[in-house]
């Protein structure tokens, strides 16, 4: 992640262990939906799951379009 950002690429980092992401320096962290499926939810119906996945991606896009202030 840090190497991608070092190269100037904005990264939305979807993960569940957000403190780890912050510790290693991720600037744009989006909470994922579990270690076993960061962008999924096996407990839901396929349609619901896809909507959840899309929601997380939309949030990722919002952070990619947002300036980060330290």
């Amino acid at each position, binding site marked *: 992640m840090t190497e991608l950002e070092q190269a100037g690429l904005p*990264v939305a980092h979807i993960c569940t262990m957000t403190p780890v992401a912050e510790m290693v320096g991720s600037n744009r962290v989006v909470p994922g939906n579990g270690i076993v499926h960061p962008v999924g939810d096996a407990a839901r119906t396929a349609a619901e799951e896809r909507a959840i996945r899309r929601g997380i991606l939309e949030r990722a896009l919002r952070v990619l379009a947002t300036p980060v202030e330290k």
Partner: protein
Amino acid sequence: MAERRLRIVHFLNQMFGGLGGEEAAGVGPRLVEGAVGPGRALAPALADGEAVVATVICGDNYVAERTEQAVGELVALVRSAAPDLLLAGPAFNAGRYGQACGALCQAVSAELGIPAVTAMADENPGVELYHRDVYVVRTGDSARQMASDMAAMLRLGRKLVAGEPIGRPSVEGYFPRGRVVPEIAPKSAAERAVDMLLAKLRGEPYESEVRLPRFRPIPAPPPVADLRRARVALVTDGGLVPRGNPDQIEFRAATKWGSYPIAGVNDLASADYEVVHGGYDTSLVKEDPDRLVPVDAARDLERAGAIGELYDHFLSTTGLANPLDNSRRLGREMAEHLRAAGVDAVILTST
């Protein structure tokens, strides 16, 4: 006791070597007899029989622009002076100089079989590049402490030449080399840990035996100006690979990453993929790979015009129990690939 002779060769860049500033940065390697500039500051620290017999000088750009050739030429000059020890720098926080010092020390030790010591400030990129292979004495960021920095390099170099045991980095003043050295401790690990905790609670100094990796803050890249025209890539460290694992990515401590085509794919089919990751229950991702690499939802967003386009490959590796240096290399290679592919932004999923 017989007097020991110690022939020292000292390496300097064009500036410390007195040839000039940036306008002289292109000058090639040359050898001057005796000590020059910072080498003269060593005089009070030298014992009888110890001498800087020659100084090798080279321009920063000359080395930076053709490192391999320049280092070869410099090694030949060092060899011609038949030294017992090479001292390089200090380079303080000068990046090109630091890299030249590190590269030369590494080459001289390997090819001439003599010890080599350099010195740099914390933030010199040469530290990160060479601290594992070369003794790098820790300096401040300016030449104010030149004499004491040079003396510290000499002390360490002397011990190396004499084959004496080298103490801990904090004692000898060099950057930790990432070595684990067995030693007999007077107290058990539990007692040492309690001692440290008590010292911490009392606000007294203590030194941890475990060095945590340092994560340097990376300034956030500016936001994507217009996502509707951006090429967005999906990247994961969750280990999704095409069935058969064509790049043979390891399930832990991966040394490789892969780039896998998704052009025209609207939904990742479980029959086409497998997961190489030994650190989580991968069954739910195997059941539906979009739970890790969200191609289906990204296509939805692409069709809706929320992003310009989805990059036609996803990148994958396995982020598990991986030494930091290795992870960084994988990251750099991925970044290079994505830049070359004209990618504007990345969505990274981590398990």
